[in-house]
């Protein structure tokens, strides 16, 4: 009866330790994951550093306590003719020791905690600090470059090595702003302007995730942090600050007409329905009730690579506008075109989102896509 139990204890110990080991390897090496253990900026690095520290402390405690536990149940298992044990009620010295020892461990961790907390925001970087107002909507992110008069959605573009100071505002419920490889979370609370400083040290693309449950499509509220080399950032910024070009292609021109006819109710394009610097987000969510455009600013839509809170990707190569059998414009391969799926039926792609549109014909969709592609 007894032996199988101890084999079981060993097996269980093996499972736990195997899981523990594989966990650390996986988490550290997960290249495609937004892993907090693969930090690319000073804030996330400090946070990850603390993790390794706690992991060491916790592992020591875990191994020590579980060993004593397993030793006790193996060593003191009931055997035939075993006498009754001594009826020991306690020992104050031992109690004192094991109150003080874990306290020392815990306070060591606490000191590390408090030290890191107060140093988390002391970061410096190249050039001036860039101020960005982040506005969380249900369920997408909008970025207002306060001093540069541009507004983007879904993609937060920043230069490498520069301190970014974000001010977090919500247009509705509580959200949480998180870029695992760059910085931990700060909640986006209506009526409050929380600040979050960070710096990204490696050019690349990083996943940003909303981590406070915010309703139906909470799962689909992501964004991309695009970190560009300084020079590329400057040229990106200049391009973003220009007004949208009026298209020359006939399909795109037809698409622009369609856009002006109805989409402008919610979407803004500088040069079409907005003046440069015309969409002032900053004033809107400070507690006032100014009416605003409900949807993302699309002035330079074609420079983005994702749409709809990263539910779909946007790639002009897979959205080539050709003609159908009757000679009308149509998307050549609609199944591969994310934007086509979106314009066909946004509620099917992301149920419950604010984009309520009538049914568009394939021709209209092709014309709109041609126009949006021209918004470089």
């Amino acid at each position, binding site marked *: 009866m*007894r032996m199988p*139990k101890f084999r079981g204890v060993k097996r*269980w110990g093996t*499972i*736990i330790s195997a*899981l*523990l080991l594989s*966990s650390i390897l*996986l*988490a550290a090496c997960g290249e*495609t*994951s937004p892993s*907090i253990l693969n930090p690319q900026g000073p804030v996330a690095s400090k946070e*990850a550093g*603390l*993790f390794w520290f*706690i992991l060491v402390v916790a592992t020591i*405690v*875990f191994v020590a306590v579980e060993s004593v*536990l397993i030793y006790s*149940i193996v060593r*003191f298992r*009931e055997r035939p003719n075993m*006498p*009754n*044990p*001594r*009826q*020991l*009620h*306690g020992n104050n010295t031992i*109690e004192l020791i*094991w*109150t003080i020892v874990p306290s020392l461990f*815990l306070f060591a*961790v*606490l000191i590390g*905690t408090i030290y890191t907390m107060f140093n988390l925001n002391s970061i410096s970087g190249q050039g001036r600090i860039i101020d960005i107002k982040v506005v969380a909507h249900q369920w997408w992110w909008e970025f207002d470059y306060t001093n540069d008069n541009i507004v983007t959605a879904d993609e937060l573009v920043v230069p490498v090595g520069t301190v970014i100071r974000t001010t977090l505002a919500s*247009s*509705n*419920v*509580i959200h949480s702003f998180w870029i695992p490889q760059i910085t*931990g979370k*700060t*909640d986006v*609370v*209506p*009526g409050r302007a929380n600040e979050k400083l960070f710096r990204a040290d490696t050019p690349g693309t990083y*996943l940003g*995730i909303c*981590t406070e*449950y915010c*309703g139906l*499509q909470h*799962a*689909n509220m992501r964004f991309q942090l695009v970190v560009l080399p300084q020079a590329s950032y400057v040229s990106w910024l200049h391009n973003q600050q220009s007004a949208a070009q009026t298209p020359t292609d006939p399909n795109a021109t037809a698409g622009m007409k369609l856009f002006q006819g109805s989409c402008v109710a919610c979407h803004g394009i500088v040069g079409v329905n907005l003046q440069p610097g015309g969409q002032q987000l900053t004033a809107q*969510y400070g*507690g006032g*009730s100014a009416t605003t455009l409900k949807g993302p600013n699309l002035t330079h839509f074609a420079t983005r690579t994702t749409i709809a809170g990263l539910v779909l990707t946007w790639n002009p190569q897979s959205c080539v506008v050709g003609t159908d059998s009757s000679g009308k414009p149509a998307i050549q391969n609609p199944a591969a075109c994310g934007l086509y799926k979106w314009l066909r039926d946004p509620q099917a792609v992301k*149920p419950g989102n604010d984009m309520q549109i009538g049914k568009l014909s394939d021709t209209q969709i092709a014309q709109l896509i041609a126009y949006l592609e021209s918004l470089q």
Partner: protein
Amino acid sequence: MATRTIGESIRLTKRRKSFSESYIGEWIMTIDHKKLGIMYMVTAFFFFLVGGTEALLVRTQLAVPDGKVLTAEIYNQLFTMHGTTMIFLFVMPMLTGFGNYVVPLMIGARDMAFPRMNAFGYWVVLFGGLFLSASFLFGQAPNAGWFNYAPLNELTTGCGATAVSCTTGLNTDFWALGILMLGVSSIAGSLNFVVTILKMRAPGMTINRMPLFTWMTLITAFLLLFSLPSVTAASILLLLDRHIGTHFYQAGAGGDPLLWQHLFWSFGHPEVYILILPAFGMISEILPVFSRKPIFGYTFIAWSGVAIGFLSFTVWAHHMFAVGLPMVAQAFFATSTTLIAIPTAVKIFNWIATIYGGKVRFTASMMFAVGFIAMFLIGGLNGAALAVVPFDYQVTDTYFVISHLHYVLFGGTVFAVFGGIFYWFPKISGRLLNERLGKWQFWLMLVGVNLTFFPMHILGLLGMPRRVYTYAGNLGWNELNLLSTIGAFIIAVSIMVFVWNFIVTLRSGEKAGDDPWDAYTLEWDTSSPPKAYNFEVIPTVRSRRPFYDKKNPDIADWKTATH
């Protein structure tokens, strides 16, 4: 009486049985603490199956990326109801049930102090639970998470800074009204426990001689009395906001959504100790009996429970590190959270010391108790990690937190509950649960729990947020999620083993006798199951192990021990 004729007597015996004497009536009309305890436990177990089914649906949806099993709306209702059901309708009534059944017996009382209020509390839980679950019939189950944050829980108008729709429909009304009802029941139950434990102990049973399960039940009752007003107020303000047009939680109109969080968590954190302290108590009863030793450091276990109770009111904002509180406030809550870990550690050491040097009998109950220590330790360690504020910024609201809370509540409370069921079932039913099936259940559950919840640590570190109904396939989360879902189904199998064991035992289980474990406390010093009046003669108590003293008069504790 003496003048009654024979004829009258015959008429009396032929009288139709009144409703309260029929089998069903006996249960419905009962005010006996033992029957009510059983009803609490059976009801709680029913809701455990409901909440478990909800969890299985959630895990099925997440087994593979882009899961298509559930819609977003259904998923959100299911995870909300899973949390709400498990906390308010499984763990709380289950622990109340144990308290109801065991505490009066342990302290040598004939019933609870207020038997009728006891029955009232039970019926409110039952109907409150049915009311909450009935929301599924309307397709409008609560869907804003078990902590139901403002302003997501508000109605359409005036929500947030601008009028953007939040939760419309009855979902949140079901939640708020259900919580109010369950709160009424908990207050009734807690008052009853406090008075019973303070006033109805057998002669000689001083506070310092009470069994530790009684101690922990007493502390839990005080925690409930002091924490429930906060969530009650929060829910009432919410209902006013939703239906009367007030703006307590609406930033745009001068309210503050964080008010909800403060009110909720100043209930919510004592609440997590309400869910675990009675489990600590059960472990402190089971370990000594199966180690053949008294509990090690009785005073330290009891008073560390009191310390946890007090400190639990000072740590609530550690649920709110990411909301942007001032740094000094965050440092305070990090410190108080560190402090509360100390009495918890002390308890674990005392339990291990109880086993150490003993003569350990591996019954199913003991295995669950040892499993509790092993699993709760993991939950304690990753909980202490969450008090490391900058690390918390990274892992709060990710699967790391899900892992932590399930190691504490499943690895902790549920293991203790099964330990308690295997321990007290013979007293309650007069029959021993099948040990072989019990051990199968234990090993399946141990493997299942670790397979389900350990990978969640890693998922959190890999950036997976909680409460998402879908995730993309290219983020490195696929294998771990699948593993977790497999683990959840293994847990489900282990629960089925228990249900089978339960049925088989009731039909043909081995007779238990009055004292199958050679136990130490008074509940074993009466018949199994006990008569309605519990004890023929109220026992007199001279030490912490009165029944041990009675069985071993020569080496009784009151002769040899120094307390």
